[in-house]
Structure formats: C-alpha cells, structure tokens
C-alpha cells in the first residue's frame, strides 16, 4: 500500500513537472512533429480497422433485438449516438494506450538503460522538455483527431452491416445517423479524449523515464504504461461523462 501511494505521488509530481516544462521555452516543435507522426499517423490504420470492425459488429448484434421491436429504423442513429458519445472516444483511448503508450514506455526506458537520457542532460538539454513534453502534447493533439476518424470508421462499418442486411441506401443511412447528432453529442465527448491523451502520454513517459532496470525494466515500463493508462482512462471516463452531463443535462435524458 505504501509503495502504491509512493508511486502515485511520484506520478503526480512527474505530471506537475511536465506541465510546468510544457509552458516554458524552448518549445520542441521538431520533436512534437515527429511524435505526432508516430502517435497519430502511424496509429491511424489500426484505429480505422478497429472502428470499422466494431461498427460492423455493433450493427450485427443490435439489429436482431431492434427488429424484434420493429425499431430497425433506429439503427443508424443508435450507431452514431453510441460512437460519437462513448464508443469512439473510449475505443481510441484504449487502443492508443496499447499501441503508443507501450511504445513510449519501452522507448524511454531503453533510452534510460542505454544512457541516452544522460547524454541529453550532458548537452544541457532538459530531458523532460526534450523527450517528455513533446510526447505528452502529441498524445493530447492526436487523440481528438483519431477519435473523429474512429467515429466515422464506426459509422462506415455500421453502414456496411446494414447495407448487407437490409439494403439500406447510404443517403438514408447518413440522414438518419446525423438526424439526432448535435454539437453537444460530438464536441464534448471528442474533446474529453484530450484528457485521455494527457493520461497516456504522462503515464507512459513516467514509467519509461523513471524505470532503470535493464531489459526487464523496458518490459515493465511497457506493461505498466498500458495497464495503468488504460485503467486511468476508464476511471476518468466515468468522471468526464458525469461532467458532460452536468454541463449538457439534455445529454443525460
């Protein structure tokens, strides 16, 4: 219990130090661009495929139930509601935690083991500023963008499923899907992934930056990054959904 609290305290201090550094120049634009490409662009195929597959499967599962009640016309709007509000953001958060979080943790832990972080410090370069801040900020920028792609991939998957089952036209599907979508359905849930990005970046960088135990440490950093950031994403999602309901009460109805 004490070591857990110690670890949590260290993580909070690390997060605070990172936030302070993020506001202080020099700003590592080049590192930010490199990490945006790695975390954002290179995660896109996995996220598009996952969003499409989940969208397709969701339609296949919900269809039989809705048909029983004669409510199959609701499938497109159900699909858009579930993806824009919850499935898209959460799926994106967990997948990026798995892909990029593990990568960041392993990369930084390896840099620690091979003294690359020490080498950066010997150049009088603030390693937090150079290595951690760009990764955290890249996660925060990439997540909302990736979420939007996952949302639409899910809708495409849903359309394909519905097309094969009922022959619904794309015009009818999109009309019905976006009939109930308002800005409040899309903007707040998408923006909440900025918090997911902050969690993924901070947690992964924390484990990678602080663990220094050879190849075992690299593995531990990678695993801990995924487990802890996934857990924190799920927990923070509950709080963020409550917050969205507080500011947009109509969403809770």
């Amino acid at each position, binding site marked *: 219990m004490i070591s857990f609290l110690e670890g949590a305290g260290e993580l909070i201090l690390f997060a605070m130090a990172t936030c302070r550094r993020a506001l202080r120049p020099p700003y590592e634009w080049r590192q930010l661009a490199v990490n945006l490409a790695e975390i954002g662009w290179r995660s896109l195929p996995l996220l598009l495929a996952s969003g499409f597959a989940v969208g397709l499967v969701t339609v296949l599962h919900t269809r039989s139930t809705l048909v029983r009640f004669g409510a199959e016309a609701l499938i497109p709007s159900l699909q858009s509601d579930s993806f824009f509000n919850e499935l898209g953001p959460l799926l994106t958060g967990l997948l990026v935690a798995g892909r990029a979080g593990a990568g960041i943790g392993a990369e930084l832990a390896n840099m620690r083991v*091979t003294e690359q972080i020490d*080498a950066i410090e010997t150049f*009088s370069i603030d390693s937090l500023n150079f290595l951690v801040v760009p990764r955290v900020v890249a996660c925060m920028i990439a997540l909302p963008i990736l979420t939007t792609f996952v949302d639409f991939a899910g809708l495409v998957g849903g359309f394909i499923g519905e097309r094969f089952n009922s022959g619904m036209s794309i015009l009818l599907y999109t009309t019905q899907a976006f009939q109930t979508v308002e800005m409040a359905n899309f903007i707040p849930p998408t923006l909440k992934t900025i918090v997911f990005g902050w969690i993924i970046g901070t947690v992964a960088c924390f484990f990678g930056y602080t663990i220094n135990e050879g190849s075992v440490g690299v593995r531990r950093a990678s695993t801990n990054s995924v487990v802890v950031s996934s857990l924190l994403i799920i927990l923070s999602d509950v709080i963020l959904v409550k917050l969205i309901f507080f500011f947009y009460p109509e969403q809770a109805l």
Partner: protein
Amino acid sequence: MSNGSDSPMTNVSSSSDGPAVEFRNVSMNFNGKEVLRDFSFKIEREEAVCILGRSGVGKSVTLKLIVGLLQADSGAICIETEDITRANEDQLSRVRRKMGFLFQSAALFDSFTIFDNLALPLRRFNPGKREEEIQSTVRDALRQVGLENDKLKMPAALSGGMKKRAGLARALVMNPEILLVDEPSSGLDPITASEIDDLLLKFKQERHTTMVIVTHDIRGAKRVADKLAVIDDAALVAFGTAADLQSSENETVRKLLES
C-alpha cells in the same frame, strides 16, 4: 591528477588558472553502498588521467559527478574553480558546455541519424549558426573519426567500434575543454580498441583537451594517460605516472599493472 590529501604520492602541478577538475572530500553512497569515501584529487588542465579499478568501485560514478549527472552526498566538486556541488540548472548548464562525454555504450540517439546526433548540441547552443556552418562542423568532426561517409546512417546500422567513434565525434563536436570517457574499449576487439586509443591520443596532442578516462584496459591507459589513478574500496589508493605506480605496494594496484 593530484591527490588533495597529504599522501606521499601527491603530485600537485600548479596552474595559474587552477585545476580543471577538483574533488574535495567527496563522499557518496549509492543504493545504500558506499561508493566514494572522502575522495580528494585535482586534475590539472590539459592533463590526461585514466581511472582504473575493479568493476563497481565507482569509476563511472566519478565521471557522472564531474558532469553533474549525480550529486555527491558531501564534499565539493569544482570545475575550473566553479563549485558545482549545489549548482542550479543554469550553473550546471554553463559548466556542462565545457565538457564532452563519451558514454560506455556511446549513447547515440537511436531515432537520429549520425549527422543529427552531432548537429543537436550545435543547433542547441548556437541558435544563430547557419545550417551550412553546422554541416561543415559536423563533416569535419566525422572526418576526424573516419565516419564522413556514414553521416546519414542510423546508429543501429553501425558496428560497436563505429558507434564509439561517432560518440567520440559527438563528444568533441563542441570543442570541449574537458573530455570525459567511460570505458572506451569495452565490447571492442583489441584492434578497434587500439584505434579508439589512437584517436584519444590524437585529440589530446592536437587540442590539448583535459581528459578523464575510465577504463579496464591498462595497456591503453598507459598509452593515452599522463597519469593513472586507482580506486579501490571507495578510496583513491594510488595515482601518478605509470612509473610511479610500479613502486606501489597496494595489492590492487600491483594486480592491475600486471594484468
């Protein structure tokens, strides 16, 4: 290197500008283990000193204390008369600009090409420097270590010896006053290790850089260093020229010299 204590082997060479590196009664514990105990010595400017000793006696820790990557528990460490023991980041940053560090694993940045590895400190410390000047400086540094045709390679594509040479070029690209070298021959075959020693010798003669080299290779140490220092049981047990150390009665020193 001269011991700050009153040892009969003390060899304090005077310099009008003071020593390049000075440890005054430095003690340090690492994970509960005493690594350095009341450690005192001076390294004069333009002097090349090799630090020898068994594995785990604190040789690399000494280098990291000099560059401020670790902090001593007590005592004072001065770089060209500036005490860095309790220095803040700005002071450390100023002192570090005088130093180059060749790490044991070379510590090249995996995600950068060799060119970018060398260009990083140049770009950082000389924001007004034109890209052509940076390219020219990097090219010159790589030419000196025989890697001018490998500048666009990634570190993973280099052999162990090439990585060490690239690391040495990076350590020297800022033209440091003090060069710190951690195990230059580790993991290398004797021929490649000798080539690295040749390069260190060349830079010592051409640039008159102060060098602090941690090594297990006694033959290389005798070639490159003006003086040798031996650490054992958390203390400096001997230092001086190779000839001075021949007369040492310390068992560790004798074993090292015979190896």
